[in-house]
């Protein structure tokens, strides 16, 4: 008896509590677009100062109150999904990739389809239509892509070691093997001990993550995620070249030319063995060259030149150069329909974004404020030294604001003047080498296609092959085991993915 009444009391209390929580939500943001709400990730230790000089200048240039919600990069995707489910949706949302979560939301109608709308805006009408297509969902453009240099793959090596051993910079994968072998066996640091290795590889193993494996496979001619064979698209790991490339990596591993803890080595420590004189080669994006040079410069400002050498993409065993490009973008700025409800509002937001991608704001985001943190010297932006307190804030803040830059019409800002003649020389060479490699780039033919099966379980599927690749290299399974894993990929749903991708590919022709 008493228990029944108790439970009744509990039910009443619960119901009240539920009503209370339900009342907590609500409050739709007003449709007044004098304020533009933006959600963006930040990769620095701290988000920018909300009333800092960059923010003020941005509001001055765009004529809007810009309210940016800076969200830590590591949890950005979660926060984005939670935000979309909430009632406080920003007008402009940085979407980092065509993740399954994004695709689902987009197909449910969460974002404006901008395919036919961007051409009216001079700063949004892209000069790289193929990249815009890569960033689309089966041809539908849901956002303004954030352009990134498509050609970034490079081989970095200890120039001082190379000179000491009297070797030449590698041009082919065969040369890479020889240099790695010499770095391992010929005591390049001259300390009389067998304590060096050739290439350092971190634990990045996911497919299509521009990891050293992906890059070497592409050099071998396996293609870039997908490749055309007999009039059909097949995943690059189904090619013979994929197996050949991994045999090559395995050979280097077996001969201890690669760090043995490659499956567990933390990617954030990638520079350490290079700098400390343990592992002499890194295969990664070319911007790491500057990072490495800076490490040596900080350690010894008087002797940092000629420590870091680099070349671009390497020729494969068949003598052909298959350079590894990225898809040319890093996410995009999308406009949610729930916050921007009418075509008129959309126009306002697009005009705002048009200003954001103009020369003035692009300069602000990438160079900073002239006279505060940089000065223009021979058409280049030179950092003002010594750094003033104001300049320091601007220098730190723009690293985050650059996340909002799209540069879909090319770089409308000053190239950065490097700190010394040597660094300027290296920088210019990087630009030159990458431009040359771009001519031999082999793109992912399926970048624009989103297959429903892949959305549902692509990451699990890809893990099958990615893990098998590492297991094969570590010697846990043999080549047959790797082939079996590829078969498992096909039977677990990969066949369907392939079918869907091919259909989308045929339709797009």
């Amino acid at each position: 008896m008493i228990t029944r009444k108790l439970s009744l009391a509990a039910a009443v209390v619960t119901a009240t509590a539920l009503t209370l929580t339900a009342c907590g939500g609500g409050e739709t943001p007003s449709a007044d677009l004098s304020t533009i709400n933006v959600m963006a990730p930040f990769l620095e230790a701290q988000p920018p100062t909300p009333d800092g000089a960059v923010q003020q200048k941005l509001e001055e240039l765009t004529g809007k109150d810009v309210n940016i919600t800076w969200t830590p990069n590591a949890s950005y995707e979660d926060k984005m999904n939670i935000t979309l489910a909430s009632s406080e949706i920003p007008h402009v949302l940085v979407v980092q990739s065509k993740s399954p979560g994004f695709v689902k939301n987009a197909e449910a109608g969460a974002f404006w389809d901008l395919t036919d709308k961007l051409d009216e805006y001079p700063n949004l009408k892209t000069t790289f239509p193929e990249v815009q297509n890569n960033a689309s969902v089966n041809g539908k453009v849901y956002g303004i892509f954030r352009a990134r240099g498509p050609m970034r793959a490079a081989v970095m090596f200890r120039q001082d070691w190379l000179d000491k051993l009297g070797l030449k910079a590698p041009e082919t994968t065969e040369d890479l093997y020889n240099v790695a072998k010499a770095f391992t066996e010929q005591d390049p640091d001259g300390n009389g001990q067998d304590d060096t290795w050739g290439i350092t590889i971190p634990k990045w193993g996911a497919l299509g993550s521009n990891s050293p494996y992906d890059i070497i496979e592409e050099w071998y001619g396996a293609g870039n995620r997908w490749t055309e064979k007999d009039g059909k698209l097949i995943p690059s790991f189904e090619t013979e070249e994929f197996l050949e490339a991994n045999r090559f990596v395995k050979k280097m591993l077996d001969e201890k030319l690669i760090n043995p803890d490659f499956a567990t080595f933390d990617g954030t420590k990638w520079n350490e063995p290079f700098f400390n004189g343990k592992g002499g080669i890194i295969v990664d994006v070319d911007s790491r060259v500057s990072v490495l040079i800076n490490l040596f410069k900080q350690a010894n400002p008087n002797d940092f030149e000629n420590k870091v050498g680099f070349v671009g993409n390497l020729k494969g065993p068949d003598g052909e150069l298959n350079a590894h490009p990225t898809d040319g973008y890093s996410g995009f700025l999308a406009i949610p329909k729930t916050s921007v409800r009418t075509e008129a509002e959309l126009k306002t937001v697009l005009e705002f974004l048009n200003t954001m991608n103009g020369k003035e704001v692009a300069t602000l985001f990438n160079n900073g404020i002239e006279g505060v943190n940089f000065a223009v010297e021979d058409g280049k932006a030179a950092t003002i030294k010594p750094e003033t307190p104001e300049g320091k804030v601007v220098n730190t803040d723009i690293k985050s604001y650059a996340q909002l830059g799209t540069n879909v019409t090319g770089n409308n800002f000053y190239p950065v003047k490097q700190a010394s003649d040597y660094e300027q020389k290296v920088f210019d060479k990087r630009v030159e080498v990458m431009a040359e490699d771009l001519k031999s780039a082999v793109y992912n033919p399926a970048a624009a296609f989103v297959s429903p099966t892949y959305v549902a379980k692509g990451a699990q599927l890809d893990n099958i092959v990615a893990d098998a690749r590492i297991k094969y290299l570590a010697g846990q399974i043999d080549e047959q085991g790797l082939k079996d894993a590829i078969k498992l990929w096909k039977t677990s749903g990969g066949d369907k993915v392939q079918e869907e991708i091919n259909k989308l590919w045929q339709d797009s022709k």
Partner: protein
Amino acid sequence: MSQLTDALASNIGAGDGAGTESGQGKAKKPAKPPKVPRGKFSIHLAHYKWLYLLLLPGVLYFAVFRYAPMYGVSIAFKDYVPFLGVNASPWVGFQQFQDFFANPDFGRLLGNTLILAFLSLGIAFPLTIVLALLLNEVRLSILKRTVQTLVYIPHFLSWTIVASLSFLLFALDFGPLFLFINNVLGTDIDFLSDPAWFRPLIVLQDIWKNTGWGTIIFLAALATVDQDQYEAAIIDGAGRFRRVWHITLPGIRSTIIVMLILAIGQMLNTGFEQIYLMTNALNRGVAEVFDTYVYFVGITQGAYSYSTAVGLFKSLVGIVLIFGTNALAKRFNQSGLF
């Protein structure tokens, strides 16, 4: 940690219940407080208003933070799209569960989870009791306190730190433990990536971090064992082990059973952080458990409905385990948890 708070909460709850009962016992006497009229709820409420007021914060807590969020569980039966919201997402019934059970990963996940759970239950749980018994036998107070504090400390380190320590100690070619063990045994084992060493490492970390903390409740129970029985046993000529076996262990039997039931209820919570941090491409085959799978599929792939279904399945198994152990405990003539 949550086990402990649950246990404490249930103890406190039990105390409250006892208080109410004794109150009622008094009420039955014809003397001071008049007999509670049982007919009207409002009168009943008025009579016990202070007790109900005491109850209110607890009920509110459970209602707001434990029951209200359960509304979200409904997405396990839907194809949830954040943009559409919980209500508007299409209803798919048991589709997510079917997909999960038909998935080739299912058997592997269940196996990995159960093996880790039983290892932790079979090794870490008895060790806690053994450590508590050992501490209890230490007569030198200062030594006992020092050791106690020392074994508690690891509990306050986060898993991130424990994992980093392990990475340093077992680092390939230069970790001190890597070098020591491999030199002594003459082997060449990479503990961090060898799948055969994943489970031992996890259990070792678990023991190192949590055993000391787990002794607290047993030590409290040990303090309540009747000292006269020990004296009697000494006079009868019982040695230390006899005393432990015949007096101490039976004395804390009910605590052991309560803790065991709680541990079994938590069994499938293999600890996301610990396992996630120790997983890599080479050991994923044995490392992936329900918790990490839910994160991988749900958070990184945005399959919220699917991963909710997986989580819900895990909770159901947990409930079955709790009731099962409780029934078993009762059957063997022990007091269960409820």
